[in-house]
């Protein structure tokens, strides 16, 4: 099976969907000639032509608005945000239009908005945010966050084929840093299904995005110390896989909830509430959150390092929890 980068897997997924379905088209800033700021759409203009790979003005509101309109008319637009931070300019179009239309009059909005999010590349406060939770709080949207190349391809395909607006959060730190096996040809990863990234017995680490790799690194360390971590990659945040979350906690009885986004109102808080409601009597220790603190992402590299969760922080918390 070919090994490819996370970024190439996204490109291949979009490419195959463009070939498969003529109603799929792309729009975004500098996605044509330039191939996108991170080159996700490199080569697409030449292959599919300017009608299906549309360079837009620098206006996220216009990009999302046009995409919502096209989706209503039966197209399947894939809109790129150059950085997911800029999505706020199209916020109203997403949460008040795209997310509500199906509930209001039953129309489909088969729309994908994708782009790079996340920190770790010294991008500063406007190019590093993990802002997925803005949308997880909006019924009517779907939110996915692939961590592997395999899931990157499978989820972009599932997102494009989904009849609902799907926000597809790529992690820019992973673009060229990770590689894994990606089958040739067609497959999808179902939205709403988590994956056990590593089996373990003592502590469940539930996470997503780049933090899956952080959790795996910590698990590797702790295995040497005799503490077995199970790592669950949520893959989808809205809807999220409640059964998988409950299953891993019922198995391990202790849990760490890990994410790169800031703490208050984060996914970890939501999962903690679920566990308190449905798995109270399965808990053998406190529910532990490891997240970024409630601040913007700092520009200074040492501060950014302090801000982000890492394997060392996860390992320390896991040791404490194991001894609890």
């Amino acid at each position: 099976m070919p090994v490819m980068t996370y970024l190439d897997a996204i490109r291949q997924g979009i490419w195959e969907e463009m070939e498969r379905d003529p109603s799929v088209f792309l729009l975004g800033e500098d996605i044509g000639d330039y191939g996108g700021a991170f080159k996700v759409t490199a080569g697409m203009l030449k292959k599919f032509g300017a009608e299906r790979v549309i360079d837009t003005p620098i206006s996220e509101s216009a990009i999302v608005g046009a995409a919502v309109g096209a989706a209503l008319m039966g197209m399947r637009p894939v809109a790129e945000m150059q950085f997911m931070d800029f999505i706020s300019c199209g916020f109203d179009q997403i949460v008040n239009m795209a997310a509500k239309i199906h509930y209001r009059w039953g129309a489909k909005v088969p729309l994908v908005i994708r782009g790079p999010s996340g920190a770790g590349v010294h991008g500063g406060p406007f190019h590093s945010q993990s802002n997925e939770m803005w949308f997880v709080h909006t019924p009517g949207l779907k939110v996915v966050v692939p961590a592997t190349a395999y899931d990157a391809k499978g989820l972009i395909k599932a997102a494009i084929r989904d009849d609902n607006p799907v926000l597809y959060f790529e992690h820019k730190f992973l673009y060229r840093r990770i590689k894994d096996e990606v089958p040739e040809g067609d497959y999808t990863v179902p939205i709403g299904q988590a994956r056990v990234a590593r089996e373990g017995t003592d502590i469940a680490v539930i996470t997503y995005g780049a933090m899956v790799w952080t959790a795996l690194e910590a698990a590797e360390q702790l295995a040497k110390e005799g503490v077995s971590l199970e790592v669950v990659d949520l893959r989808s945040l809205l809807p999220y896989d409640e059964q998988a979350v409950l299953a891993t906690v019922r198995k391990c009885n202790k849990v760490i909830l890990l994410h790169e986004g800031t703490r208050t109102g984060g996914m970890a808080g939501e999962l903690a509430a679920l566990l308190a409601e449905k798995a109270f009597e399965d808990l053998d220790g406190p529910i532990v959150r490891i997240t970024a603190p409630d601040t913007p992402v700092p520009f200074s590299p040492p501060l950014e390092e302090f801000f982000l969760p890492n394997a060392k922080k996860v390992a320390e918390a896991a040791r404490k929890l194991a001894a609890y």
Partner: protein
Amino acid sequence: MPTNVIMPQMGESIVEGTVTKWIKKVGDRVERDEPLFEISTDKVDAEIPSPASGTLAKILVKENETVGVNTVVAVIDGEGVEKPAMAESVQTAKPAATAAAPTAPRPAPPAPAVARLSGKVRSSPLVRRIAREHSVDLALVPASGLGGRVSKKDILSYVAQAGPAAASPVAPAAPQVSPTPAAPRMVFTGPIETVAMTPMRRQIAEHMILSEHTSARVTTVFEVEMSRVSHLRTKSAAEFERRNGLKLTYTPFFVRAAVEAIKEFPIFNSSVEGTNIIYRRDVNIGIAVALETGLIVPVIKSADEKNFLGLARAVQDLAERARTKRLSVDDVQGGTFTITNPGVFGSLFGTPIINQPQVAILGVGIIEKRAVVRHDAIAIRPMVYLALTFDHRIIDGAVADQFMSRIKAVVENWDEPVL
């Protein structure tokens, strides 16, 4: 400052208790949490710890006297540093009460040990649940967690060591019978090998005993002719498999027959809770699957809403995933009626044990050709014995036999197309 000692409420439904013994006499020095007196209630006998340190000033309720809960039974003269009397008595009475009366819809286990001391032991919700299920006094479990906390590891190894005595299952919701005396310890002579039960085996063991303690079971056996189904199966098996990629087995026929009978007799799709019969609106049929390591019962959800192909597919999918250990927790929960199939191992019929909290289970024996009498001649027909075990608490024999007659009629006069 004097502290009132009250009769604690040892369970939600308990309204009074009897003081069986005063451990301290008037004038004795007593430490907070030290055993002060013993009580007996409908459900629990317990030792009650003192709510405060001080001197036992007054005993207001004598031994063998019965009073309502929250009645003041004694007064302790404190040392002036204690918190106000009300807060004290409430605080200390509560932990014992909650430990004995879990929020689960079961009555408190008839084990005084749990009520006695668990209020003082640091543990976790999981550990308290395991303690409740196994009637373990947490105070006796060696603790290895931070700050003397009893962890999951601690209680699991304690339960494993203590063996069946400590691992006796929780008493059922049925009327309380006097606890069975402990079986005399048997001593085998000669070489032996001791093998610990796997967790699955332990669960099965507990669940089976729980069932035997819960329902009043009766088994009725019907003989059913399989000619129509057998013929249909021979005729359609190849085409069915070609179209659907599924083997055409007998199981979905029996599932369908059971569903039809349940529709007519919904009592077979119910549960007993206390003195209520709970009719379950979903018809979720559990299928017992034998594994090398034990037995598991995955569930076909909403079996009444599936057509024949849907049932066949569900049966195959669940069996396949059971064998490859890919069942989810959800797959094995929510069953309302169970079908087991000892016939595949050659059994003529069995007397299956009810899968609690259900009230009936259908066992399918071996399907084989037998000599039967038809029109006063001996004929050869494919036959099967169907055994139904039902809970006589809520189902009488006549109803059970009507239910079985309905199943027999559906199978013998099968008219639903399978293709």
